[in-house]
Structures are given as C-alpha cells and as structure tokens.
C-alpha cells in the first residue's frame, strides 16, 4: 500500500520568480552526465538484481518448457473463463473503489483545506493513520467490524465480510488519506482570491468554483484517482482477508496459483497481465503529472482556511466528521476492543498468549511476540537500503536538465528511469517474493538463508517513496544558493554539504519514516521469503487469521493492535518532522 506523491507542490509559491526565467540553469556539461551516471550506478544495479532479474526469471520459468518459449500459454490462460472472471472483478472493484473513495473523500479534502475548526490537526492525523497501516491490519480491523462475530454481527446480525462491500469500504478506509492529502494539499494552497476575482467579475459562487477552482484541482483529483486505482487494482492483503473464496483480485490469484495450486505458468501470465495494466496506469499518471506542470499560483495554506460559515458548511463539516468516525475510527477502535475482549471478559489474555510459542496454540515455532522484533529489525534494514538507493536516484534525477531541455535523449532516459522506479509499486509483490526465492538461491548470490532477503524485498517498495519525497525538495533547492556558496569559497562538494544537505535533511527523515512504515507493513513479498521461525508482524497476523479458533483470532487482533501502534508511532514522529510544504504531500 503505497502512495506516490503527485508533483503538485513541486513548485513552491513564488517559483515564477527569477529562477523560472534563469537562462543559465542547466547548461549541459559532460561532467554533469558523468556525475549522473555515477549516482545512478547503484540504483540501477539494485533494480536490475533485485527486481528485474527475479521478476523476469519467474515469468520465464512459467512460460518456458525446456528451451522453447510457450507464448501460446498467454492466450490460453487469458482466455480461461475463471481468469477472465478474476480480471473483470479486479477491474470493476478498482473502479468502484476509486469512485467511492473520491465521492467520500473529496468533501473531506475541502473541509481540511478550507475550513478552520477545533481539532483539525487531530482529524488530519486520524485520517492519515490508515495510510501507513499494513493492509493486513486494515483487513483485520474490518473483519472485527463486519465479519463473523464482529461488531455489526453482534449488534444486528449483519455480516459483510464475504461481500464485495467489505472490500470496497476497506479500500475507502485506506485511500481516504490519499485523496485528502493530494487534493486537499493543493486546495489549501490555491489562492482564494482567484475565486474572489471571478466573483467580482460576475460569476456566482458555484460558477466561480466550477470555472476557477475545479480546473486548478482537476489534475490533483486525476492523480489521486489514478493512485487509488493503482492501489486497489493490485490490492492483496485486504482482499485476501476480507474477500473469502468468492472474490479474488489478480494479485490474490497470483498468490493462489503460485503458493497453493503451484501452477507457475498461470501465475506468470497473470503477472504479465498485471504488469501491462500497471504500466498503462503509470503512463497515464505520468501524462497527467506533466500536464500539471502549468504554474499555479500557490499561497501559504495557513491563510486560506476560515471558520465554517452558514448552515451548508457546518453540515458538510458534520458529515465529514461522521464519515471519518464511522469509516476510519470505528474499525480501528473495534480492533483494539476485540484484542482485549477475551473469553473470560476484558483482559490481556491474547497479549499474554503472544509471549510463548506453546501458549499461542502451536501456530508458530517461536513466540509470536518475536515477530515484533523481527519486523522492527527488518524494517530498519529495509529503510536504510531504501534511503541509500532512493537518495542516490533522487540526486541523479534532480540534476539540472540538459541544454536542449526536455526533448533531449538524456531527458527521456531520466524520465524513463523516474517511471521505472515506480514500477515495484505495481508489479505483483507476490511475484517479486517468489522470484527472490527461486533466483537468489545459488552462488554467486545465495541469499536464501540470509536475513537480508526480507529487507531487500521490502526496500523495493520503499524506494519509490524515498524518491518521491526527496525529488521535489532537491529540485526546489535554488541553484543560486549553491552559487552563492561557491562565490564565498565553497568547493562544489562543500557547497552541497553546506547548502543542500541541511535543506533536505528533514525530507530525508520524512522519507525514512515512510519507508519504515511501508516496510513494516509489506506483506505480499514477505509472506514468501520470511522464514517460518522468523515471521514479520503482518505475516504472523495473516497466519493467525488463517487458523480457526477464538484464541488465534484474538491473538491476530492483539498483534494487529501492536502493529498499528508501531505504525502510529512512526507516523507521529513523521508529522513532527514534516518539513514545510515543499516536501511533498502524501
């Protein structure tokens, strides 16, 4: 569950200033190209070795018999009615989730952007929590709310856990923050005076909004919609837990084919299908981002909000608060409540059971609580890797464009690599995980028994976050600050250390926080490569949920609560460190 930041805030307010027309920026030099190549060496090697190689190997293994390719398999599998069914479901649930999320979250974006009310910061924090939550926890929380023995079941006998509604609602739960942060982030920075100007020129309130604000917001809405679509299209943990046997997305089907049916060739075909679909989505996304590079007049968001005025705005605020309460706060609250609700009344029964392998009911070889430490260690290592690879890539991409500008071949390569970095978000994590297992198991790279395997896979999804966070900040560093340092006697390296580093340090911390949260929650790949005696939190939760019995269920709730707290702590730390708005809106 990942988010690419739309490049809305990339041009900070006032960017139309001298730098915009500075003709000296980015004159081509062979040295620049060499520096870029050197910076890109490690990221390229990382992605080749730990992404392209495993994925291509597993696809190859599925489509080859002996020495010959069986491309006919593609048409054969893609034509199967059950596969077509999966494809159709994947597509329409993603569309429905996206529309539902937009419908529910856009009023929230407005309220958080333009209204000022007590508890606004708290509301902002609450809607962001799901965003860093592992999919497994979200699935568990909705199970506690809507599932068998869940809150609704206990109160009214209503169960939604094997219906598509549970999936859709969980997707809204997750992606609410995507829309609020992306669209609301821009909305808060749009100059209200633009709308006022339209009003003065004779436009009604609604016309002014439709003609002035909506066009300015449209690219952000489109970007948010695309990201939501991408996440829901590749949804795994949520559907795995809430979908039951009736519903499965491509990603779930890939997992089933790989891990349960052991039909590698079908899995390979499905991976290719998903890859193609995600490639198409990313291409559309790249286009909308580029279209958005029109300069918007952005202002300090702290000046654009006002107290709710009139009944309509108050009603809107009320309904947004109610929605957030029902959709986001309630599942999390129920999750926590369930974790304490033992057979003999409220208590720490389930938490205690986590402390030893025997008490936990024999699901694990080690005490489930061990998973907390495993997860933290893995996530830390993954964060370090993602930061290293992502920062190098961002630094290379942030180098000034070449002389002939966007049309140049080098520019295309850079943009291409930029898009390539996003691919791990969309390529089946299950495929990556399984690919790791079958490719990195022989010399010279035998990592099968090495603990580093899990962090490497988790870092793959962390890198896009790091790049998305760092890139706008790096690009926003005024080249002339560096020049000022040079004139004062700083060598290029010294100027970078003295000028760039202090400015990006906070962005680096934010990137680290996101990479950490994403690594902590990574499930699709980890479920394959985490060793049975070293499960991570999400893997342990999923395993507990896969077993029958009150004790396992309760322990899953307890572990999920712990995971949620760890993530919330990471988020809290993040919000404290959040640099100014130039650092990207997640």
């Amino acid at each position, binding site marked *: 569950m990942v988010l690419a930041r739309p490049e809305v805030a990339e041009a900070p307010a006032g960017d139309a200033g001298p730098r915009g027309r500075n003709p*000296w920026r980015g004159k081509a030099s062979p040295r620049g190209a060499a520096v870029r190549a050197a910076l890109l060496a490690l990221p390229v090697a990382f992605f080749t070795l730990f992404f392209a190689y495993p994925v291509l190997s597993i696809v190859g293994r599925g489509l080859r018999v002996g020495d010959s390719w069986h491309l006919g398999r593609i048409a054969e599998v893609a034509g199967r009615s059950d596969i077509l069914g999966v494809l159709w479901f994947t597509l329409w649930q993603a569309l429905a989730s996206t529309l539902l999320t937009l419908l529910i979250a856009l009023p929230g974006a407005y309220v958080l952007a333009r209204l000022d009310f007590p508890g606004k910061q708290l509301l902002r924090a609450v809607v962001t929590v799901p965003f860093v939550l592992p999919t497994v926890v979200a699935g568990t929380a909705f199970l506690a709310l809507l599932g068998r023995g869940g809150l609704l079941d206990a109160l009214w006998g209503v169960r939604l856990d094997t219906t598509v509604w549970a999936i859709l609602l969980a997707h809204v739960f997750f992606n609410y923050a995507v829309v609020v942060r992306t669209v609301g982030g821009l909305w808060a920075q749009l100059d209200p005076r633009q709308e006022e100007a339209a009003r003065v020129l004779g436009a009604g309130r609604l016309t002014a909004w439709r003609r002035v604000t909506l066009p300015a917001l449209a690219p952000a809405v489109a970007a948010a919609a695309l990201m939501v679509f991408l996440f829901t299209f590749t949804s795994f943990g949520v559907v795995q837990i809430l979908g039951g046997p009736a519903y499965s997305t491509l990603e779930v089907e890939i997992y089933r084919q790989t891990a349960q049916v052991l039909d590698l060739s079908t899995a390979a075909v499905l991976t290719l299908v998903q890859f193609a679909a995600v490639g198409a989505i990313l291409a559309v996304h790249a286009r909308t981002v580029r279209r958005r590079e029109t300069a918007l007049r952005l202002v300090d968001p702290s000046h654009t909000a006002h107290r709710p005025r009139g009944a309509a705005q108050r009603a809107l605020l009320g309904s947004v608060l109610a929605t957030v309460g029902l959709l986001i706060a309630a599942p999390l609250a129920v999750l926590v409540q369930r974790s304490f609700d033992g057979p003999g009344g409220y208590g720490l029964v389930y938490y205690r059971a986590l402390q030893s392998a025997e008490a936990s009911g024999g699901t694990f070889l080690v005490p489930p609580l061990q998973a907390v430490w495993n997860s933290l260690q893995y996530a830390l290592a993954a964060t370090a890797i993602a930061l290293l690879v992502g920062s190098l890539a961002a630094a290379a991409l942030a180098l000034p464009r070449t002389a002939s500008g966007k049309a140049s071949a080098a520019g295309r390569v850079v943009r291409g690599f930029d898009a390539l970095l996003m691919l791990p978000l969309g390529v089946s994590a299950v495929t990556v995980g399984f690919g790791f297992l079958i490719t990195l198991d022989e010399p010279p790279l035998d990592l099968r028994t090495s603990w580093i395997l899990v962090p490497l896979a988790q870092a793959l999804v962390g890198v896009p976050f790091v790049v998305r966070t760092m890139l706008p900040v790096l690009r926003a560093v005024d080249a002339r600050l560096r020049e000022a340092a040079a004139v004062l006697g700083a060598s290029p390296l010294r100027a970078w250390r003295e000028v760039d580093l202090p400015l990006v340090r906070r962005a680096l911390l934010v990137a680290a926080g996101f990479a950490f949260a994403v690594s902590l929650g990574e499930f699709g790949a980890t479920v394959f490569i985490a060793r049975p005696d070293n499960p991570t939190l999400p893997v342990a939760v999923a395993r507990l949920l896969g077993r029958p019995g009150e004790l396992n269920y309760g322990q899953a709730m307890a572990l999920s609560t712990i995971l949620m707290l760890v993530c919330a702590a990471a988020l809290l730390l993040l919000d404290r460190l959040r640099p100014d708005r130039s650092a990207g809106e997640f």
Partner: protein
Amino acid sequence: MLVLEGATVRFGRRAALDAVDLEVADHELVCVLGPSGSGKSTLLRAVAGLQPLDGGRVLLGGADQAGVPVHRRGVGLMFQDHQLFPQRDVGGNVAFGLRMHGVPKGERRLRVEELLELVGLPGAARRAVGELSGGEQQRVALARALAPRPRLLMLDEPLGQLDRTLRERLVVELRAVFRRLGTTVLAVTHDQGEAFALADRVVVMRDGRVAQSGTPRDVWQRPASEFVARFLGFANVVPATVTGGTAATPWGGVPVPAGSPQGACRLLVRPSAVRIGPSCAGLPCVVESLTFRGHHVAVRLRPHGAPPLEAECGVGDAPEPGAEVGAVFAAGDVVVLRPGDGG
C-alpha cells in the same frame, strides 16, 4: 584589477555578451547600466566563473581566470535577491565565507561583529534571516559578501527590491562603506539614478555590447547615442541636419553648441533646453499634459505637425493643459548624437 578582453557568452544563437572589453581599476567603483536582457548579469556571472565564456578572457589581478573554479577566484558577488542561506542565522550567513577560507572561530566571531556594525546591524548575529526586512537582508548580504575581503566585489541590482527612500539612503551609505574600505566594486543595475549616485564610472550596455562608458557626468551630459539618450529617459530625439550653428529638425531650427559635427545626425533636445513662452514667439504648441516632478513640472507639448516635445519648467510657471504656448530652444542643453544608431 579586472580586465575583460572580448568576453563572449552565447545562449543558443543569441549573444548575451558580445566581445565585451572592460577594465576596472583598483579601488574603482564601476556601475554597468542597461535594460533587462542587455547582458549585465551575465557579465557578473562570467567574472565570477559561474558562466563559462564562449570566447575572450577574464583577467583578475593580471591572471587569466580560464580554468579557475568559482570558489578559487576570490571575488564577492551579492545576488539580486540576496540568496541568504535560509537555514542559517545572520551570523552564520556572514561567517560562511570565513569558514570556507579556514578562518579560526574566534577571529570569525570578531569579524562578523565588525561587519554587522559596519552595515548598521550591530548585535544581529543570532537573528533568523527569515524575519529580516528587505533592507536588513540586503545589509546582511552585503556583510556576507564583504566578509572574506574579496579583491573584487560584484553587486547584482544591489538595491533593486527596496523601496525608494531606503534605496536613496543606502546608495549614500554603500558609497561611503566602499570608499572607507577601498573596495573595488563592479555593480550592475537598470536604474540610472542608482548607477549615477553609486559609481565613479558608468558603463552602459546594450544587447551584450558596451554602448558607452564614462563618468556619470559625461554620460549624462553627452550620451553617445540615441539608445543611451532614450535609456536615460530623454524622449526628445529626432533626425536632424546640422549646418553651422543650427540644426534643421521637424520642430524647425534648433541652435546647437559651437563646434558640433556637421551634416545628418540625431539630435537630443533636453527638456531643460525647451523654454515655454507666449504663443506668439517660437514653435506654436498645445500643452497636452503636465507631470509634477517635485522641483519642476514636466510638460508634454504637441507642436502642430511635428513629434511631441518634452519641456520642463518651474512649478509656479506651469501652463494650463490645453493652453496655446510657444517653444523656444536654448543651445546649451542640445546634444548632437552619433548618427547611424537607431534605438
């Protein structure tokens, strides 16, 4: 101190600097004046080494600077919008160059205090740059540029973003500071008032070339071309033919100073050369508009069948708009410009 020989910089096919020759002597205060896009800033960047030359040479203290990186040239540059380091306080900004040059800490602190004193911000070292006013930022930028004692200090539109009163005060202060320190200064600006008030010598640039160079008084009194005259704000420039002591112009005969070159030329008639009298004498005009300028009034005259004419007169003598008046020319404030230079 600084010598430019045929310095050329091209952006694509456009030459931002077109074979510029320029010299700045030790302790001299030179101001490059020109409209935006005339290549002034490129000139500074080329000297600083921020902009590679496509041709020609830059010499500092007699040494060719080709291949000398920016940070080893020992020049100072004050950027147009200051470019103070946002994450450092005032003291950190001023001390930056000193740190780069390995000045020990104690000495740094003393020098920072001394410089802040000099620019009129004593005790401001701990303040954040974000909370400074425009004028204060400008002073900090100046202190930061002066701190490493550059052999040549360059100023890019040093006072461009400040309001008028502050600007007028700072020009005087800056000049005093540079005199006292004996700093060699090369400044660029598009504001003639600033250039004339600041500089020992003014260099007017146009399209990457030097259009005129001289003392402020020289340039003001004897603009070398129609371009320079118009850039200095003179509107009364017309084609003319000089014969003896009189020039034939669309406004009729205008007396020219003795010894003016003969033949076809462009003629500048300063507003102060136009005397407004009763309509019976001189060139008959209608008063089109008046602009109050404080000590005098600028009068725009519309002669019958000739280009408009700018005149000036005392506040008490100003005619009414629409009045019929006569314009008489005085030779003292008429300048024969070099021919063949459009503008």
